Each structure stands twice: as C-alpha cells, then as structure tokens.
C-alpha cells in the first residue's frame, strides 16, 4: 500500500514538520520504502501473543511526597530562544 503525497503531507502536519516540495518527495519515497519492508510482518501469525512494551518487568514506583528544590528558573530559561519576566515568549495564540 503506497502512501500518496497528500497522505504524507498529512503525516507531516501531525508531526509538526513543514516540508518543502523536494523534502516531501524524498520523505514520501523513504516512507514507502520502509512500509514495504513492514509488509513482511503482516504474514506473521501473532494471534494470542501479548504485546511487549518493555523487555524488563516494570513496576509502579512510589516515593514519599517530600518537596525538594527544582532547577532554578533562570537556569532553565537560559536556554530559551526568547524569554521575558520569567516566561517563555511564544507567538500570539488568541486573537483580539
């Protein structure tokens, strides 16, 4: 099953990647190449097999609810492309 350019464009939107036409072409080719490889899995009988998300058993981890210092705000904002008054600056989201 080949993905069309339109479908690839939709995946790119979901992935928040603005691909130019050349990139879209390239990604479409790579995506379809990989999907063709995945076809091999469809022939495998996996009925009744439990999916495995982690190779070692995972247990919920509990700890005492004790407050401890987090990273200093200034140290965190140091890496922000733009910040002011202790906040990250982003484009306007709500109009008006």
């Amino acid at each position: 099953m080949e993905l069309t350019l339109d479908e690839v464009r939709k995946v790119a939107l979901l992935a928040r990647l603005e691909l130019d036409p050349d990139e879209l072409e390239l990604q479409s080719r790579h995506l379809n190449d990989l999907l063709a490889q995945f076809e091999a899995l469809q022939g495998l009988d996996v009925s009744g097999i439990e999916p495995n998300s982690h190779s070692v058993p995972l247990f919920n981890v509990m700890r005492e609810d004790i407050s401890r210092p987090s990273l200093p705000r200034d140290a965190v904002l140091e890496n922000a492309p733009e910040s002011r008054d202790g906040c990250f600056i982003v484009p306007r989201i709500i109009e008006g």
Partner: protein
Amino acid sequence: MNGIAGKTVRELRELLTSGQASARDVAEAHIARIEAVDSRVRAFLTPTPDVAIRQATDADIDASCARGDSIAPLAGIPFALKDNICTRGIRTTAGSRILPNFIPPYDATVTVRLLDAGSALIGKTNCDEFAMGSSTENSGYFPSRNPWDLERVPGGSSGGSAAAVAAGEVPFSLGSDTGGSIRQPAAFCGIVGLKPTYGRVSRYGLVAYASSLDQIGPLTRTVEDAALVLNAIAGHDPLDSTSVNSPVPDYTLACRADAKGLRIGVPRQYFGEGVDPGVASVVRAAVDLLCGLGATAEECDLPSTEYALASYYIIAPSEASSNLARFDGVKYGHRTKELAGHIGLMEKSRDEGFGDEVKQRIMIGTYALSAGYYDAYYKRAQQVRTLIRREFDAAFERFDVLLTPTTPTTAFKLGEKSGDPLAMKLADVLTLPVNMAGLPGLSLPCGFIDGLPVGLQIIGRPFDEETVFRTAYTYEQATDWHARRAEL
C-alpha cells in the same frame, strides 16, 4: 610525557598509583594526542581540555597516591562522553543542528558518577543526530573517521566515542545503544563496547531516542576496562524509574580466563544471507577457540530474527516521534527566524533544525501511531518483540551465552550507504534484536579482514553481564587482537 596516550585504564592507574605520572600528566598527554590526531579522526564535537586539567588537579589524586592511600578505580582517568549525554555547563548537541547551543542546567547520572569517581572529562564526542544512524554521517556537524582507515566510517551512532578510544585520544568513553550504537562502532573500530541489560544503568540525562530500548554503556580497549567502567556507572537511580534496584556486583571479578563448562549457543540466523562469509568464518573461529579452552558450542535457532528489523523500525521511530515532540522552538534549541503563528513556529523550527534521517523516523513513527494503523504496525511490532524475547529465553535455558558477528560486514566507506537509508539500517541487523529483548551484549575484536577489525558479539541473560565478561575476557586473554593499534 610520551607513551601515556593509548594506554588502558588499568595501565594508567598503575602509572598514577606508583607515582610515575601525575593526574595532570595523564590529562595533558591525552589532550596532546587529541591535538595531534583529531583534525583527521574528528571524534570530538566539543573538546574540554580546561575541564579535564581542572578535574585532574583539583581531585588531589597525586597527594593521595603519594601518601599511599587508595584512590577510586577511575580517579585521574580521562574520559569522553557521547554528545547526547548531558553535562552541566557544557554544550550538549546530541549531534543535532536543532541543539546548537544547548547548555544543560544539570548532569546526567552517569556524568555525576564518573566525576564523583575522580575521572576527568576531556570532551564530548560526535554522533549521528539523536543517535539515529550507523556511521556518524547523520551528524548535523561533520562525519567522524575510522582510525583504521580514514576513508571509512567509524560506525555509529556512538562513532565519535569509538573512534576516540581506537585513536588513543581517550582510554574510555561512554556511548548509548538503542539498536547497536555502542557495539557496532566498537566492532568497526576494533575495541570493546558493552550495551548493559536494559535498566542496569540510569538513563537520566540521556537525550531520549527510544526510551524502551536506549541504554548507556562503556567503550574501552579491554574487557577488564569495560568492567571497571560498568562498576562505576551501574546501579539504581531514583531519577530513572526504569533503572533496576538490584545489587551491582564487582564486574572485574568476572574477568577471569575460564571457559570450562561454558555452554555457547550459535544462532544460525546470525550467519545467513547478508553476512559477509569472511566475517562469519572469523567469528566461527572465535567459537572454536573458546571450545578449545573448555567451552562447548552448539548451533541453535532464533527464527523471529528475520522480523526484528521491521519491528524495530516501527517501535524505535514511534517512541522517537513522541520523545522528539519536545523540540518546539520554545523551551530550548533552534527557533526559526520567520514568524508564522504558533503552529508555524513549531513546523518551521523543526524543519530547519532536524536532518533528513530524523525527519524520516519522526514521520514513520507518527504514521505508525496514527489512528487506524496502530494495530497493523505498532501493536504487531510489540507482539514480534514478545516472540523475540521468548526465543532468547528458550535459548538461554540451554546456553550461557550466544556468540554472533556484531556486524554483517567490516567498516564501509564514507558515502557508500548515505544515500540509501535501508542499506544503512542493515548495519544494525545483528545487534538490534538484543535491544528488543533488553539483554546485555558486548562486542570485542576477534580478527581482521583487509586491515579492518571484525567484532565478536557475546549476548547474555538479563543482568548476567558477569558471564558475558568472563567469556569475553577468556577469549581476549587467548588472543592479541585487542593489542593491535591503528596507526595514525
């Protein structure tokens, strides 16, 4: 001082404790080696000579040695970190142009442990962007070179970490391994590389690629050095809920030449189509050598191996598409200069910052997790993962270790596979099933073909790094491949 760079951790420790060299001498010798060869090898993205000298002189190692006090096993030993491991105050790029100037406000747990042990950080090494690749050609900065042949790749994604050790620039380094990214470059560069059992080493502060597969481990010249480094970095960490709270043995005690009674499994599927016959025969000779020392070997089957690659390339990109959602041009990293609303800000920043391979994996992961395709891809891949683990479990009822080639071929040339993402992915076909099952895997040199090293992969039971070390050490002591040095 001459002759210091290129020594093993153990040899350097002897120089320090006997007073033949100071910690500063050791740091300076490695800094000089980096200055002499790294313009050709290009292992380092960010050398940190000042940090290394400061740590070597601050730690008061020489005074302790002069008094005859015992020092920590890695005290005064220089090391390098793959650039996806966070270092407080020192740039960490993960090999990506989306993080050109990220200065972490905290250290990874492995960084803390090595610094507390008195080791001296000498630099951050190059890698494929976000650890996605097998050659370092996906680095957003430059490709690294293989010290055995500068026209060839060092492997990847921890290619800089492997090349630095093989070039004698540093006695040990850390890498990360999601599908082979420690073992494959170790094999290509003729050194030892260990991916510990999933959960053995804390991932806190490792830039996440695929969280259920990622594991940090050492790259060294010898098996015993790998055990020394694992001693320092292994163990439970409250900051990583997947790190396992079980005791850490002294792994150096497992380094003894003793193959008696060792039961070796040789999985047929790891010697089949796509594996260079020369590589296969070198690895079979390694199995024979161990049998001559008292081990027994028998062929076995891991039939789901042929499905491992496809399921890996569903699971790892799915996790990556989620992990890499954090790069949005807001909190850290590259932000586009074009202003285009909040969605456009993310789309453009990510498009400008990420390289092609990373975009490809984000795309495939996003698709595999999207509504309507989840059962056909992600769930099915996880079911295959169960099959793979079951087959390994069954094999380990009969065998103590499994021996395979680490890679299907020796190191390939720069550019040879960079236009063909699928061919590149096959470089990891013999290592990635080990991550899918969460097992420990170690690569060590077992021969050369046309002057290029071949890696022997030793796979063990979960949390049984000791038997892996014992097997590797026994082989290493009976051969001298590890003593060969690339000429630069």
